[in-house]
């Protein structure tokens, strides 16, 4: 058995599901304007975003077996019923067929959206009004004292998910936390709480019993075995214009930043979800018998040396470049 060598020229063989049609389902009409910068950022990255209310008639993600959209953004955390053909099982089928999904939860999220996230592998905190709270690293700019708007700097160190650059300022987050067990193979936690974060219902004096600290997964990313990607964000406000533009002052340390890291983080995570970054393409494999020099023989015998060559490219948007692989198993 020989080794693998990365080819310098790449034959683009099979293509992954990288379309550009996005269906954005919003819970209320004002999300269209309150999250306009996020939608504009997606459009600037080359995606066609179709923003519709979640209860509109005639909504459908596929007609028979043909997908009408390649990606779905679900910004309706309190929705129990969806219009048209959309339902929890329909969205799961959509993911099974290779579509990508971005789900945003919020405190008091409905059971439908919560169980959709749970089916995708991320268990949101099930208690009613529980949300991520931090009395130390919360947003204190402008004299605010709301411990539920946390300023988090614990993001995953991954070039594939967040791109080459990391957010320059803490990410402002207001929403629910989830817990992802370590044994889970397909889920990566993209943003987890700071060590001082915990989850509680601010209106009740109960002691915290949900995930605390870094175990509170605020934004999680799932990559299914059919390469479909699902991003589950515990906060819808993370994507809002208000938090994109907000200046951050961390209460505990007093550090202040002119602009939050929300825009960079949200768009980077969304572009990963929609296969615009970190997707691999393989070219046609080639093999030859080293002893006889024959290219692509129909069979090899035991103990014969084989040279196997395959081209692996990394796709980022419209740019294809050779993949710098850390380790490849053949």
């Amino acid at each position, binding site marked *: 058995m020989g080794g693998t060598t990365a080819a310098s020229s790449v034959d683009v063989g099979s293509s992954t599901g990288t379309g550009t049609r996005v269906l954005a389902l919003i819970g209320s009409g004002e999300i269209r304007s309150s999250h306009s910068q996020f939608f504009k950022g997606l459009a600037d990255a080359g995606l066609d975003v179709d923003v519709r209310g979640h209860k509109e008639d005639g909504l459908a993600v596929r007609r028979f077996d043909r997908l009408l959209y390649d990606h779905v953004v679900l910004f309706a955390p309190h929705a129990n019923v969806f219009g048209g053909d959309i339902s929890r099982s329909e969205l799961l089928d959509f993911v099974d067929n290779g579509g990508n999904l971005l789900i945003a939860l919020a405190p008091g999220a409905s059971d439908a959206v919560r169980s959709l996230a749970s089916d995708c592998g991320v268990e949101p905190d099930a208690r009613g009004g529980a949300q991520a709270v931090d009395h130390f690293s919360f947003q204190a700019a402008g004299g605010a004292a709301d411990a539920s708007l946390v300023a988090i700097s614990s993001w995953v*160190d991954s070039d594939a998910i967040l791109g080459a650059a990391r957010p320059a300022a803490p990410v402002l987050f207001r929403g629910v936390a989830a817990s992802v067990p370590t044994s889970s193979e397909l889920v990566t936690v993209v943003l987890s709480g700071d060590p001082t974060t915990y989850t509680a219902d601010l209106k009740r004096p109960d002691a915290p019993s949900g995930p605390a600290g870094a175990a509170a997964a605020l934004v999680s990313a799932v990559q299914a075995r059919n390469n479909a990607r699902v991003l589950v964000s515990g906060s819808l406000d993370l994507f809002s214009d208000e938090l994109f533009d907000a200046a951050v002052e961390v209460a505990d340390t007093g550090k202040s930043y002119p602009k939050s890291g929300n825009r960079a983080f949200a768009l980077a995570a969304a572009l990963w979800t929609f296969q615009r970054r970190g997707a691999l393409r393989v070219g046609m494999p080639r093999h030859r018998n080293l002893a006889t020099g024959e290219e692509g023989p129909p069979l090899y015998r035991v103990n014969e040396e084989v040279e196997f060559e395959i081209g692996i490219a990394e796709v980022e948007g419209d740019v294809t470049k050779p993949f710098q692989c850390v380790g490849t198993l053949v």
Partner: protein
Amino acid sequence: MRAQHWLLLCLLATSILCIIAQEDVAGDANSIPDPAAAAEEPPTPAQPKKAKATTAVVLSVGAAEAEVIAASGKRLSRKAADYGQALLDGVSLEAGASIEVTFTPQADGAASKPQQAMLLLQPKAHKGLSAYAVAKARKDGAHVVSLSQALVEKQLGSLGGKLSVTLLLGDPAAPKGVRWELGTVKLPAAEAGLQPSPVYRTALVQPISNVLPNIAHIFRQPDKRPAAAVSLVFTALALAPLALLLLFLLATGGLGLQNFPTGAGSLWALLFHGGIASILVLYWLFWTRLNLAQTLPPALGLGAVTAAVGYKALGALADARLQQERAGVTPAKKGN
């Protein structure tokens, strides 16, 4: 018609003016502060509709006490410290032993029960991991939290070495939380080779759990065979009868070709022996080179030819014998 239109327009204009007037009145009331109130006390800001009318409290904690309890339940040592000082400096926590930290959180000076009263344990050797111990409130307002190796193991797996302990207090009513670095606790060293295995994935510590091990294939070793000399001896034994036959033939005078048929029969006899020889050659070719599918057709052909030729040869031999008898070999018959 026209009069009705005018009437409707007037009503519309009146109602709009009323609404504008009301807004004006409300706006005036909010913008001009009451001078009498301002003279007595500092002006309180107008309460926004959404915030509850809670006053911000200030959380604090006075002193804390740490008690080391052995596995048997015996209380070993006790230490107290004030806020800001180190309470636990490298206290060793054996397996089964526990450390109880008691403190009284206060809000504006009075004992209170804040929502967040927990200890944050961070191992020094593994950045990004943290364990938590939540304090329980006692009846008299004091909070007790118990640290043990089992607590850390349940959250982070097997872990050894120093852990830094921080007390965190926080409440929704308080604008800022209280953080007190209590010191460090030393856990017994973990078993060699065991890595911490946290129960939940975090953004900073995420083990990759689905990489298969790299297998270097080893071919099966051939079975042990006896020494070559043993095989050669048995080959010699197997060939011994053939060798003995050759020796016997050489000793007794060869192949005995004197009775080989002469004349017409010699051709058939030669062909017959040639056919047998060719079949033997085919045997050898089959042994060394050919497979059965390649051997059987020629074997059948050669066999048929040899059989026919042999029949002819025997016929020629019989004819020769008859001729000899007719030519006057009657004395042989008379002998019988």
